């Protein structure tokens, strides 16, 4: 598979995304924010970081970049897009995903490993989930508290578009397991068509045992399996 990793000024997990894809045996390249075409690519990763310094609001400026116009077209044509951390914020700001991310409940930036419950294991981003239905991956964000109005939440729940929830080791989305105050412990969601998803935790930083966990690889592997079934390679 061929992944493209968007490169915004101030993105800092772009290299991590690229590394993870390559470790899993696939190709990846950077796509500069001033480009206006996605070009030949099977899937797009929108990486974490502080795009444009996050000066206005996390992800708020990145959505106006030329590459984002191209990304919207790519997504509308059914291309797979995953936004991670700041990438999730950008996709929300761009209207590709519902909801918004606001400051963590405790106001501090927070970095630690968390457990994620795979709330819907039948999507292009979660289908390779382990039997336990729980993966351990790191978070690293200051504005990761997911928020959406009641109506949106109901729609998300009904259409099973909540993909990941913060949980404890046993898979229970408890209050204690919620690192940032996200409503319903939501860590990540997808769009209506199911081809665009975003999450605050960093699965791309958990693809090798030597860096503490390889359980995040299942997210990228889910995408890879979906693409290979579609006949893309």
């Amino acid at each position: 598979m061929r992944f493209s990793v968007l490169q915004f000024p101030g993105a800092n997990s772009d290299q991590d995304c690229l590394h993870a894809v390559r470790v899993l045996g696939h190709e990846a390249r950077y796509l500069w924010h001033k480009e206006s075409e996605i070009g030949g690519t099977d899937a797009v990763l929108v990486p974490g970081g502080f795009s444009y310094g996050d000066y206005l609001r996390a992800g708020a400026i990145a959505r106006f970049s030329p590459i984002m116009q191209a990304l919207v077209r790519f997504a509308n044509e059914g291309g797979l897009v995953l936004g991670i951390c700041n990438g999730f914020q950008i996709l929300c700001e761009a209207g590709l995903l519902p909801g918004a991310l606001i400051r963590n409940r405790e106001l501090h930036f927070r970095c630690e490993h968390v457990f994620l419950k795979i709330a819907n294991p039948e999507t292009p981003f979660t289908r390779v989930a382990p039997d336990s239905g729980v993966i351990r991956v790191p978070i690293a964000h200051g504005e990761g508290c997911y928020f959406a109005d009641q109506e949106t939440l109901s729609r998300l729940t009904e259409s099973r578009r909540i993909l990941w929830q913060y949980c404890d080791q046993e898979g229970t989305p408890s209050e204690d397991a919620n690192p940032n105050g996200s409503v319903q412990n939501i860590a990540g969601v997808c769009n209506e068509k199911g081809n665009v998803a975003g999450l605050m935790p960093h699965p791309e930083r958990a693809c090798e045992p030597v860096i503490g966990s390889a359980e995040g690889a299942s997210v990228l592997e889910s995408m890879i399996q979906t693409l290979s079934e579609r006949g893309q390679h």
Partner: protein
Amino acid sequence: MVEPEITPELVESHGLTDDEYQRIQKLLGRSPNYTELGVFSVMWSEHCSYKNTRPLLKQFPTQGPGVLVGAGEENAGILDIGDGLAIAFKIESHNHPSAVEPFQGATTGVGGILRDIFTMGARPICAANSLRFGSLESAEVRRLFKGVVAGIGHYGNCFGVPTVAGEVAFDPSYEGNPLVNAFALGVLRHEQIARGAAKGVGNPVFYVGPATGRDGLAGAAFASQDLTEESAEQQRGAVQVGDPFMEKLLLEACLELLATGAVAGIQDMGAAGLTCSTCETAARGGTGIEIELNRVPQRSPGMSPYEIMLSESQERMLIIVHRGREDEVKRIFDKWDLPWAEVGFVTDSGRMVVRHEGRVVVDLPARELADEAPIYQRESRRPAYLDETESLTLDSLSLAADPGEVLPRLLAWPTIASKNWVYRQYDYTVRNGTALFPGSDAAVLRVKEDSLPGLVEGEAYDGSFPEKYLAISLDCNAVYVYLDPYEGGKLAVAEAARNLACSGAIPLGATDNLNYGNPHDPELFWQLKESVRGVAEACAFFQAPVTGGNVSLYNQNPGGAIDPTPVIGLVGQIEDEDAITSQWFKEEGDVILLLGNPVDQKDPLLGLGGSAYLQVIEGLKSGRPPRVCLEEEKQIADALRGWIGSGVVKSAHDCSEGGLAVALSEACFSEDHARQTPRFRGAQVALDPVAGVDAGAMLFGESQGRIIVTVERAFLPKVLGQAEILGVPLKEIGSVGGETLTIEYGEASYTWDLRSLHEAWWTSIERRLE
């Protein structure tokens, strides 16, 4: 604008003495003008010139087979790590700015050290820090602590460098004068080393990065005087403002430009900004430099030459480009949307010439300005307080406290307590290289293909890159240094070396941050002199050349000087991935061994001098600190690395503050599996009674050279046999298992519930901040 007349008062307010001013007049054959006086004041400050410490720093070992760029040559030293790869690393203080404006002081400290690394052509792959504050009982200290931690986090997190290691200690001597020492490490290939020299007469000089403002005026001079309430208030405006986003762009643009080969020399604008970068590059290049200030991007109108030259606005670089290749600079900096300006050229005059509106405003000899600051041999005298502290005897101590109650109190003492409140505000996972997270003896970093300056793209991972593992530890027990500067200096290095050994690493080199009080006070200068001697001796012994560092003097407030604090940053290498070792117990049934002698019986205080036990339980900061035998430390470390290398050792944790009982506790519960999910593994320990050593000294004494190790039971005979052959003390003291920590000593037995010990240790700092 009319420049002020040079008066004795003006000279004094620039921190220059009469003698220094006369030296300047002699050097120039005339009096300096106002701008030139400013230039001299920063270049001849302690921060830039090391005028008070240079003779002492000569004691450090600086050479070694792996040294590619040595101490003092460039912005940071560079060491070989094999296969054509190299690392650049350094530590630097930002103490005074952080005392005045903690958030910005800390951010710009991190920004400055990161620039020192990528100026060398290296890509920064991690950051670390060493922090000291007063007691958390004080609201002001809490404000400083919170601000500094938030500032460090903000800058590193946004820039995208994992902050992986560090130390934080609390002591009343740092009240009002916290220490903020920031460390960074980067990776590059040997042939990618960049130099800060203005080479090639006629080559154009570029200024890149954001515009120059009035912030940070003369910060280097501010850092080189006592901190008083008055000076802090006056200097609030001297604290620069950091922009990590800008720095990230600057990093990528500089690395991209360096890869083109168009760069003849590069130097960051840190302390003393444009002044320091122009005169140092000219001095190193054996050339001269001429710049026109009107071309320098400026944030506000009407800035004077003095202000432009002395500004410490952040995230700026000076780049000397090979003539004819100017377009490459423009192309790359335009791509990254970064301001750039061609501001001058390299000359053969040996002079630093600055023009403003066509008029020459500075004309000074570059080399003399950079290298000929006066050198002082300061007077030193053994401090009077030592008579009292050294007279402390064991008999005079009650040692009546119940060890069962002492342990949770020590674990909750902020200096010993878990620093998770701090490091969880730092992104320590970015860059996919952190193999051992904060919370073990040393951090371990993986060097992989994308650790190098160039961006890697395309093909799948083929595993051909020779990955490396590095261990980093920052250490200093300043109470030991206060109580015995020479011994304390050695102890700081020994502890760092022990931490590296526990993670499986062998030392490669060191960087040091020397934090002291006013050097004009003979007693304080004696602390500096003696501890540097100890640090130098130990670094030489461990074959860890000092590749650079920083001196921060005048760390005092009206209440007195800080404890002498020579922070040692030791970097080591681990042979392969399997050898990476962490401090926590791994499996039920494993045997717990004590490597090293249980207690130093030659020490009259049995390891209690300067200990956490004396400070917390007896309220004493006194006694002679434990002695370190470097030879024994090395034998123990070599043996440990051997066992780690052969896959026998499952965990290793050194005994430091709080002694054996604290180390055992940490080994039981410090594995932080995930949020709210610590891993508990109990331990049942029995220690042989030693005549004349009561339980308090045995459990909480801080005798050096002790490491708690676990092995599978099947390997026990083998390691004990090998220890005997090697002549290192190694003894089975217990086994891993159960829900509690139990320590038997002679007739006495103590049992603690792990969950409550963990609670005391894990939440202590957070509770004090509420």
